């Protein structure tokens, strides 16, 4: 299989998307930790913005997953 073939490009796209999901997930983990820490300290203000941001991060992860799924199917189907 040549380096520039469709499955190879598909794999690169999938790898990139997974790496991006991983980065977003790390941000989300940090967000949850910081929010929990604030909550346990009795500060309830950050809970709402943190939940909204976490929702946005999850939506981005899910969109990337859909992208992975689409690219994967397209690569399998072939030209």
């Amino acid at each position: 299989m040549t380096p520039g073939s469709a499955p190879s490009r598909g794999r690169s796209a999938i790898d990139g998307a997974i790496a991006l999901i991983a980065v977003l997930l790390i941000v989300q983990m940090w967000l949850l930790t910081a929010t929990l820490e604030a909550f346990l300290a009795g500060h309830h203000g950050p809970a709402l913005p943190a939940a909204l941001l976490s929702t946005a991060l999850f939506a981005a992860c899910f969109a990337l997953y859909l992208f992975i799924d689409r690219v994967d199917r397209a690569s399998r189907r072939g030209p």
Partner: protein
Amino acid sequence: MLWREEFSVHAAEERYVTRRQFGKFLVLTSLGMLAGNVWILVRSLWRRPQAVAPQAIARTGDLAVGGVKVFRYPGANDPCLLMRTAEDAYVAYSQKCTHLSCAVYPSDDGKRLECPCHEGYFAVEDGRVLQGPPPRPLPRIVLERRGDELWATAVDVGAEKS
């Protein structure tokens, strides 16, 4: 080759599926993080002020200046420390370190509260963190003097005013 026909496993396709499954795992983890944040939000919105009954914890003459007494408030599993820091000054804090809930003890000079597990230090005056890994001040027990008795009336975790 014969074995390739018999075992028609395509490594590239296998890798595809694995990556897709890994992506799915990451997204499900992300969903778990979101659930955690939503849980915190719900707890924050529906919080109710905890009504704890006042409790007599000591008589004013029980402790000498610099003395310490252990009591439990608000529940039987909530050890606290009452300290007499001056002739007419008393302070009380939860004895659980805010790092990993080890028991804190007064230092030899009586000016700090020490957590021996990870060397966290708190100020006796207000319970603030002086040093070490504890992320928050010690919860302060609100004291009230009723005659010659000291009563614990509330637990102040340093929450924002709302």
